[in-house]
């Protein structure tokens, strides 16, 4: 009996899978998919990506890339990321930057050893003033070597924030347009002032205050050890405090506000869209859903393009901040290694290098903060589609 029931259910299952009704349904699905693909191509043609294309043409790593082609590949799933080669490229970059810092490391080590040797002969035949001068010159030499490496790192950091600001000004109008076209008019209205604020005033605040404060902390760490008469530790603490407060307030307030408002607005848009569809379907008993077919295609197509553009922007963001973050990581490693190597020689150079390694973290935090806020807005703009449909 059990065997008979098993065979019967298997036969019924096979009939369901291979029945003509299922085949017709699958054919209809394929037709709808082809129609959607065609509409997406038409909508992509109508989207003005000239500014984004011009921006990409100016970047070394993205030259020759067509924005619309990449968006189409993202929508169809043809674009695949090779994570292993990405990891290898990052390690290779770190290694190259580390090798470039070896001459500076050798100079610092030599100067500190010499300074240590001469300092130990202070009481024997060198006057204390001469020792002060020798220490002063050694400190300036070591500091000069460190600052020479640091300038490139700081320039990369400032450049990254300027690039992120440019990207925001190009990408946000496109994303908001696509969001409005995909039924998220209220969400777009909510996000618009927030993204304008992020790409404008907030980015300028980071470029003009936060990053310069972290640079001031670094500079004051350097000059604070020059003379025992003039100390700048408390001034350095003041700038650190300003940086920490600005980062904390910006992250907390902005991200909380954006997340809550964005989700609420998306829920409202979703209910409005479903209510409109229900009204249209309800008033026409037989062909109601067919009436809104064109609108559904535009909404779905716009949503897919929006999500693809959001994903593309995230890749662009990662490409922008990868270099300065890896540079800073290599530089901090170099400073800590130098501090460890010069510690046995004695003197203040080792503690200066160690303190500098810690202070560079504020600069890194500034870059990562603005990158995180940009990333968060992109994710919210992309994910709002899931609530609407």
């Amino acid at each position: 009996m059990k065997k008979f029931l098993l065979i019967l259910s298997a036969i019924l299952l096979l009939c369901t899978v291979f029945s003509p009704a299922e085949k017709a349904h699958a054919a209809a699905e394929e037709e709808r998919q082809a129609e959607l693909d065609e509409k997406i191509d038409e909508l992509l043609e109508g989207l003005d990506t000239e500014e984004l294309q011009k921006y990409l043409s100016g970047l070394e790593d993205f030259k020759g890339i067509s924005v619309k082609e990449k968006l189409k590949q993202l929508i169809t799933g043809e674009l695949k990321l090779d994570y292993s080669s990405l990891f290898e490229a990052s390690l290779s970059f770190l290694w190259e930057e580390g090798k470039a810092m070896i001459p500076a490391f050798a100079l610092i080590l030599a100067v500190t050893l010499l300074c240590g040797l001469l300092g130990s002969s202070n009481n024997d035949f060198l006057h204390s003033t001469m020792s002060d001068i020798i220490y002063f010159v050694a400190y300036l030499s070591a500091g000069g070597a460190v600052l020479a490496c640091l300038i490139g790192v700081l320039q990369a950091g400032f450049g990254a924030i300027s690039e992120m600001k440019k990207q925001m000004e190009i990408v946000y109008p496109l994303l908001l347009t696509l969001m409005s076209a995909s039924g998220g008019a209220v969400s777009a209205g909510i996000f618009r002032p927030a993204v304008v604020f992020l790409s404008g005033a907030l980015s300028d605040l980071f470029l003009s205050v936060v990053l310069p404060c972290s640079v001031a902390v670094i500079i004051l760490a350097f000059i604070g050890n020059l003379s025992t008469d003039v100390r700048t530790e408390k001034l350095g603490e003041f700038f650190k405090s300003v940086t920490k407060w600005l980062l904390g307030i910006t992250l907390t307030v902005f991200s909380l506000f954006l997340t809550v408002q964005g989700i609420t607005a998306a829920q409202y848009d979703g209910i409005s869209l479903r209510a409109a569809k229900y009204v249209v379907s309800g008033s026409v008993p037989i062909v109601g859903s067919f009436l809104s077919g064109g609108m559904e295609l535009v909404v779905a197509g716009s949503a897919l393009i929006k999500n693809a553009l959001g994903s593309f922007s995230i890749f662009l963001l990662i490409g922008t901040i990868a270099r300065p973050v890896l540079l800073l990581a290599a530089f901090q490693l170099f400073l800590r290694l130098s501090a460890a190597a010069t510690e046995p020689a004695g003197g203040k150079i080792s503690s200066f290098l160690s303190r500098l390694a810690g202070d560079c973290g504020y600069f890194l935090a500034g870059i990562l903060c603005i990158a995180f806020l940009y990333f968060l807005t992109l994710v919210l703009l992309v994910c709002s589609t899931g609530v609407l449909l």
Partner: protein
Amino acid sequence: MKAYVLSVAGAVLLSAVLAIIAPSGRTGKFIKGISKVFVLSVLVSPFFGLLKGNTPSFSGKNAFESDVSYFTACADLLEEEDSKEIQALLQEQFELETEVTTKRSSVDLSLKKITVKLVSFGINEQGGHIDIVSDVQAYLEKRYGCETEVLP
């Protein structure tokens, strides 16, 4: 900000050099004291500017403009779809052959106007043409809630 940091660094550097080369005794103490006052004045100089009302401003762009060409492309697409759908609907409901043009807003993509040109009245009687025009107009206005024009 950059100028301020550089000026502080320069002042401290100068003070350190003076501290090293200053002679011992009262003259040296006097020089060190002056250099400390100089560094202090450089440190507090921005606050005088703030007291005078020179506050920094961080205004950026005021607004982001939407891509009007995209909305226009969407509106064109929807107008094409709407025309086909309404033509099929009128064929089914009234057995009429029609040429339909629609107008969608390029701001919010809502349907603004439907224009129907009757090509053939099908099985409808010759005398019922005026009734057909008003029936079609009323039907479409009720269904879509927008301005409708039916041309016989």
